């Protein structure tokens, strides 16, 4: 009890921060991020929006989980009626169920654990019930071995049924820096939108690139406070954009950066906006040329690398790009 009491002030101050941020962000959010329905149907867990998007890797992840869940619950109910479940097993199963129920009930508004970690907890729960029930049945053991095998294949063949945001930032930065150095200079600006700037800044070689961050208008939830410090020692230019009523106020224009430098890279998920209301390609300065350098496909869609270069520079250098 004393230990709990000692922690209370810390939790109150932290929760206050969280709630304050949640409500400020909520001004712009059209929907609820942590929707209990999304959690329950599993779409959020596997990042699947339509049936056509389901891949083999997704199926390998989903089907065994569903099979485990169905068999487990059926056997558990059977055993419950036969009064075969011990107290310690009840404690384990109940703890998992209660924790999950609270997550579903309050997770949509208050910060709980991310749904995909909850999926992991659920799989553990179903595993507990299944193994404890079916380990004496040879047929069940066979099914269990197949499920384990499929999961292992999913883990190493496809590596993962897309629960996380695996994106090739290492390769993206390497490609961007290759382009900048190919234009005969060591330094060059990289414009990254929304949440991209943090992983990009991690992989940037020190002092070879200047990073500009511009807000992703489509996803205002992803605005973070980077005023604290330079990220990983890089110069970091962020427009004064934080929880303002009008997200367009006070932003550094992408076009002004395009005018300032004769070459550079834009990293974006949304080619139609790039932080502006008008598509970038339509607003390109006359003395510059913008084109796609490379498109990276990820499990969250695609990330496009645009390069821009002044027409004068194109004539001066014979770049491999």
């Amino acid at each position, binding site marked *: 009890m004393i230990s709990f009491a000692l922690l209370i002030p*810390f939790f109150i101050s932290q929760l206050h921060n969280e709630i304050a941020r949640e409500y400020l962000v909520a001004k712009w959010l059209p929907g609820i991020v942590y929707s209990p329905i999304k959690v329950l149907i599993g779409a959020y867990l596997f990042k699947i929006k339509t049936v056509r998007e389901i891949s083999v890797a997704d199926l390998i992840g989903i089907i065994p989980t569903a099979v485990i869940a169905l068999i487990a619950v059926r056997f558990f109910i059977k055993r419950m009626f036969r009064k075969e479940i011990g107290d310690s097993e009840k404690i384990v199963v109940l*703890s998992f169920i209660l924790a999950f129920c609270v997550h579903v009930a309050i997770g949509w508004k208050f910060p709980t654990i991310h749904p995909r970690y909850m999926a992991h907890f659920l799989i553990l729960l179903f595993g507990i019930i299944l193994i*404890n029930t079916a380990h004496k049945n040879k047929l069940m053991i066979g099914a269990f071995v197949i499920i384990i095998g499929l*999961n*292992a294949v999913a883990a*190493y063949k496809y590596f993962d049924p897309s629960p996380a945001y695996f994106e090739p*930032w290492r390769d993206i930065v390497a490609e961007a820096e290759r382009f900048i150095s190919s234009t005969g200079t060591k330094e060059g600006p990289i414009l990254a939108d929304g949440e991209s700037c943090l992983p990009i800044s991690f992989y940037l070689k020190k002092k070879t690139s200047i990073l500009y961050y511009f807000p992703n208008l489509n996803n205002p939830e992803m605005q973070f406070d980077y005023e604290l410090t330079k990220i990983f020692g890089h110069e970091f230019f962020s427009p004064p954009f934080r929880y303002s009523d009008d997200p367009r106020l006070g932003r550094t224009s992408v076009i002004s950066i395009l005018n300032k430098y004769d070459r550079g890279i834009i990293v974006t998920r949304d080619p139609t906006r790039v932080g502006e209301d008008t598509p970038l390609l339509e607003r390109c300065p006359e003395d510059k040329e913008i084109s796609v350098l490379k498109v990276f496909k990820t499990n969250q869609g695609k990330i496009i690398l645009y390069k821009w270069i002044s027409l004068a520079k194109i004539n001066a250098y014979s770049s491999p790009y």
Partner: protein
Amino acid sequence: MTGVSKKKAILFGLLFVMALMPRLLGITFHSLWFDEASTANMISQKNVESMLKALSRVEGTPPLFYLLEKGFIDLFHLPIDEFFLRFLPMVFGALSCVIYFLLFKEISSAVVARYAFVLVALSNFHINLSQEARSYSLFGLLALLSLCVTVLWWKRRSRILSLAIILSLVLTMVIHYYGLIWAAAVLCAVLLIKPKNRQMRDFFFWPPFQR
């Protein structure tokens, strides 16, 4: 060390190594993603004070995981790269497989525990969580540990186990806010099992000083 405890230590060591292997493979295969880069950003702060300040403003999560990561990186003067950022979560993930084995051994049998170990050691979800420079594998480890000591306490009560329950639940709360919900769930589960009055009083009222 007695013969039995030596055997146990060897068994747990073996299980740990077996769980570690799939987690070690491809640990640097993926680039850091946004959340992991955020962890790296926190750890790269020049001292603990500025890290805690940054945590409060940017992450808004309890600090234990970040303190451990920063301590690990600073103590051994390690570079902040994918491998070392993901090293501790990998170890926590492998340890949680061993705890999973112990938990099943307690609630069922050694045979069932072996199956359970295989399930969790090769679970793609669990492998991914263990290869992420985030606090979740440590949270999972502590959640399982708290469950394991609760089950052990249920079977054979002792002050050490009572303290272990408190400590593991408190640590879970200093990893993530969800620890509060987890602690409440474990306590409610014990309550719902409806033990004898004496047992209930022992669990809910300062366990270390109860018989």
